[in-house]
C-alpha cells in the first residue's frame, strides 16, 4: 500500500487495525472502519464496511476471519481482501456490480485477544482468552460458541479442551458482538468464515449429518467457487457439508448464520493440506489471498444474482 504495508507479510494486531484505518481514509466514499464491540481483554473489534449507498440497509455479505487465532493465513487473507475490494471497485466489473447491489462487511480479526496471544506468548493458541470461573484453563472455542445446536456433537464441556463450547451460547463477547450486529442489521444474505488449514470449502451443517434444505444449491455454488479458486494456481479444494467433510462441529458460526436466515453460508479452510499447517510461510499469503478472492467473488456474484 501507499503506507508501506506489505500484504505479503504477517502483521501485529495494531498494524492490521492501522491499515484498516488507512484503507478507510484513502477511500472514504467506499470504506468505513466501524467498531462493533470489544474483546474479553477490551480490545476493539473493528470491521470494514464497504458500501456505495450509505444510509440504506441493503443486502449484505459478512466476511469473517481470524476466529481461531493461530490460523494466521485467515487474518492475512482478510486484510489483503480489504485492499483488493477498494482497489478493484470501479475497475473490475464483478466487484463493482456486487457493491452496486450489496454491502460487504469484513472482520479481519474476530478474536483479537487470541491473535495478540499468538504473537506474544503462544503461537499455537486457538481459543479466546476469557476466564473460566471453575477452571484454571483459559478461553472457549469461539467457533463452538454460537447458538446453533450449542454444546452438541464435536464440542466439549471441559474448559481445558480446545473445543470447549463455553458456559453458554454467545458467552464469548467476541461472538456476541458479531451476533448482535448481524441481527440488528437484519439483512445479511451471505456469511463466509475463513479458517485454515486443509483446503476445504464447506457449507452447513456441522452439527448434523442431515442435509440442509439448500444443500444442493450451496454445493453447486461451492463447486463453482472451488473451480474458480483452482483456476489461478491449481490449488485443489474439497467441497461438501461441514459434518461429512471434516467432522461434527456444533455451535459453529456458519451453522448459526444459516439457521438464522443467511442462506449463503460457507466456511473456507485455506492453505495448506498439512505440510506447514498453521505455520504457512508468508510467501504464500498473496497467492492464497489471490486464489481465495476468486472463490469469494464467485460466491458473492451468485448471491448478487439470487437475492431473496
Amino acid at each position, binding site marked *: 500500500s501507499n503506507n508501506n504495508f506489505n500484504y505479503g507479510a504477517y502483521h501485529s494486531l495494531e498494524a492490521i487495525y492501522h491499515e484498516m484505518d488507512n484503507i478507510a481514509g484513502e477511500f472514504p466514499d467506499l470504506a468505513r472502519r466501524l467498531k462493533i464491540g470489544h474483546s474479553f481483554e477490551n480490545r476493539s473489534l473493528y470491521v470494514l464496511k464497504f458500501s456505495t449507498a450509505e444510509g440504506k440497509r441493503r443486502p449484505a455479505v459478512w466476511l469473517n476471519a481470524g476466529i481461531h487465532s493461530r490460523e494466521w493465513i485467515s487474518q492475512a487473507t482478510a486484510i489483503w481482501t480489504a485492499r483488493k475490494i477498494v482497489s478493484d471497485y470501479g475497475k473490475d466489473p464483478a466487484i463493482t456490480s456486487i457493491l452496486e447491489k450489496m454491502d460487504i462487511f469484513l472482520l479481519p480479526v474476530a478474536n483479537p485477544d487470541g491473535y495478540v496471544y499468538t504473537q506474544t506468548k503462544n*503461537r499455537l493458541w486457538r481459543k479466546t482468552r476469557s476466564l473460566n470461573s471453575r477452571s484454571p484453563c483459559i478461553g472457549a472455542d469461539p467457533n463452538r460458541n454460537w447458538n446453533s445446536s450449542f454444546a452438541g456433537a464435536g464440542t466439549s464441556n471441559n474448559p481445558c479442551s480446545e473445543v470447549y463450547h463455553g458456559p453458554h451460547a454467545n458467552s464469548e463477547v467476541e461472538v456476541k458482538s458479531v451476533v448482535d450486529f448481524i441481527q440488528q442489521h437484519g439483512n445479511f444474505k451471505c456469511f463466509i468464515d475463513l479458517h485454515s488449514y486443509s483446503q476445504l470449502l464447506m457449507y452447513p451443517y456441522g452439527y448434523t449429518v442431515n442435509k440442509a434444505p439448500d444443500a444442493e444449491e450451496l454445493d453447486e455454488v461451492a463447486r463453482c467457487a472451488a473451480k474458480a479458486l483452482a483456476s489461478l494456481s491449481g490449488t485443489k479444494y474439497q467441497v461438501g457439508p461441514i459434518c461429512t467433510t471434516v467432522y461434527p462441529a456444533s455451535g459453529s458460526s456458519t451453522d448459526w448464520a444459516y439457521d438464522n436466515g443467511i442462506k449463503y453460508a460457507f466456511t473456507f479452510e485455506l492453505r495448506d493440506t498439512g505440510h506447514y499447517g498453521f505455520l504457512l510461510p*508468508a510467501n504464500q499469503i498473496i497467492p492464497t489471498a489471490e486464489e481465495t478472492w476468486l472463490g469469494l467473488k464467485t460466491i458473492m456474484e451468485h448471491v448478487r444474482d439470487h437475492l431473496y
Partner: protein
Amino acid sequence: REKFFGDQVFRINVRGGDEISKLSQLLNSDNFKLDVWKSPSTFSHPVDVLVPSVSLQPVKSFLKSQALQYSVTIEDLQALLDKEDEEMQHNEGQER
C-alpha cells in the same frame, strides 16, 4: 514466548472406526500433552497432532503397538517458528 524445541507434528492415518477409537485413547490422555491440529473424523481422514519432544518416544511406541501408520510432517517446529518470527521482524523494520 513458549518454545517448541524438539516438538514434531505427526500425521496419523486412520482407516475406520476401530483405528479412530484407538487413536482417541491417545488423544484423550492428558499424559502426553498432545495438541490436535486436525481432529479425527469418521471418514478416515488423516489426523495431525503436535507431539511435544518429551512425548515423542511414548507416542511412537503407542502408535506402533496399535499398528497405526504415521509420518512426521513437521520435524522441527521451532525452526519454522523462528523463521516466521525473523521474517516478521524484518518486515516490521522494512515498513518502518
